[in-house]
């Protein structure tokens, strides 16, 4: 994406405002080319991705960062819906959660999560994750070019 001038659009599915702020802070700290769109639960995330309701004008994100512990529809359900939707399944989904449980790790990858990250304990580690995510997924990795239908 070296030639790209448009920002990197990241959908952040996270219900804890403190974590939303930390993630926003970390990504803002490491570069200015990313733009995060926080949504509070799975249903809102799906409306955003499908441009429904209040999100008819939403951009198509380049990546989804998904917490597992969400109200109502939990993160794994959201993941399953995304990965079985032909329109959405090519989007990289990064699970970002506080769970260290093997069960969650296995379930996430079984549902085709693109990677699993645990929320780090210190601020520096948060920055490190933001930096790593940005440089790996947007400098090194080739992603399919997808245009918004219509």
């Amino acid at each position, binding site marked *: 994406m070296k030639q790209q001038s448009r920002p990197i659009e990241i959908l952040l599915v996270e219900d804890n405002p*403190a974590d939303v702020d*930390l993630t926003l*802070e970390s990504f803002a700290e490491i570069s200015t080319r990313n733009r995060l769109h926080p949504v509070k639960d799975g249903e809102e995330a799906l409306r955003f991705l499908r441009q429904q309701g209040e999100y008819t004008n939403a951009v198509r994100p380049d990546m989804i960062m998904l917490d597992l512990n969400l109200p109502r529809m939990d993160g794994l359900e959201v993941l399953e819906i995304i990965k079985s939707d032909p329109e959405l399944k090519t989007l990289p989904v990064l699970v970002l959660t*506080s769970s*260290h*449980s*093997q*069960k969650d790790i296995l379930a996430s990858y079984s549902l085709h999560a693109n990677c699993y990250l645990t*929320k780090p*304990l*210190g*601020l*520096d580690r*948060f920055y490190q994750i933001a930096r790593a995510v940005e440089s790996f997924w947007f400098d090194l990795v080739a992603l399919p070019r997808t245009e918004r239908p219509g």
Partner: protein
Amino acid sequence: MTDQTGSVKKKHLARSAEHQHLSAGCSPQEAELEAERRRYRDIIEASPSALILVGPDGGIVLVNRATERLFGYSRDELLGNPVEMLIPTSVRTGHKKYRKSYFAEPQPRIMGQGRDLYGLSKNGEEVPIEVGLTPIQMPNGIHALSAIIDLTRRKQAEDALALQADELARSNAELEQFAYVASHDLQEPLRMVRSYTELMQKRLPDDLDASARKAMKYVVEGAERMQLLIDDLLLYSRVGRADLAIDRVDVNAVVDHVINLVSVSLAEQPGACITRDELPTIRASESMLVQLFQNLIFNGLKFHGEEPARVHVSCKELKDRWDFSVQDNGIGIDAKYAERIFQVFQRLHERERYPGTGIGLAIAKRIVERHGGEIGFKCKVGKRGTRFYFKLPKDPAGRRGGSHETAVETD
């Protein structure tokens, strides 16, 4: 006394002592015989076990005082009646069959081995008993002598013990679960405290006064320390909960791996070294063994004195166990702390000098105990260095496996 009718016999058996006078006019031989009978009768009466003599037809021929006490019947109510009156109704028919087969092939044995036996007392209570059977040859055929022990108290004690063991196991399992859940859920808010205090620290104006800066530093340090404690608590709880996966483990490889793991602290101490003898291959959980040696070796490295730390691992083979030693040349441990050092979060030294949460040896102890072994230390007075030893049975199988009913979640 030659009268064989039931009523006279009953009377005789019941009140043999009163019969003394009847024999007063007999010949010396008869008197002697009578005295001997009396002695035998006294012996039977004195027995703490209930004794019941049963004839070939199943009728009760003789009982003693203990029988009356145990079943609550008087002698007159028992004699001449079928022995089945003392058997709970549910097993009465079965007993008749057993009785017949016993008389077909009479020999001394314990009745109903492996089963719980109950007697039926007059007030309808079922009394747990143990019964020994002995065939006795009588002029009118083989009789069976039952010697009956009342197990009520033993049974009550056993039940109470079993109940206590159950409760203990349950409360242990609950504690494990509690420790796990508590430490797991405590991580979340702590992560917030840490992240946001760090963020605040970062954004503090440079000219913030020294005391505020110091306060911030303490908050951050406190959160970091709590993090360490929680991590250690999780580890400790995991050592207790995880399934014990026993494999054949080459302890040489384990110790070499640990030396590798602690190489960072080795590098910080010039001259420090870890050595080992040739060690055996044993049956144990490999991951736990790594943790065990790591904690003991790290401990030896950490508590060094003026001289560079030297830690040596050795092992002695005994008939049914291995005796491992981890010897260091460090500052030693006062014997009066022998109990305390293996407890969770117990520290003997100020944090500044020897950092750590104080859980390392508690985890080591837990690992050894889960393998059915023992851990301890030797520290000679006036001599530097401590020798930690642990004994592992060659066959660690069949040991307590922790609380398996809790969800296995590894992190």
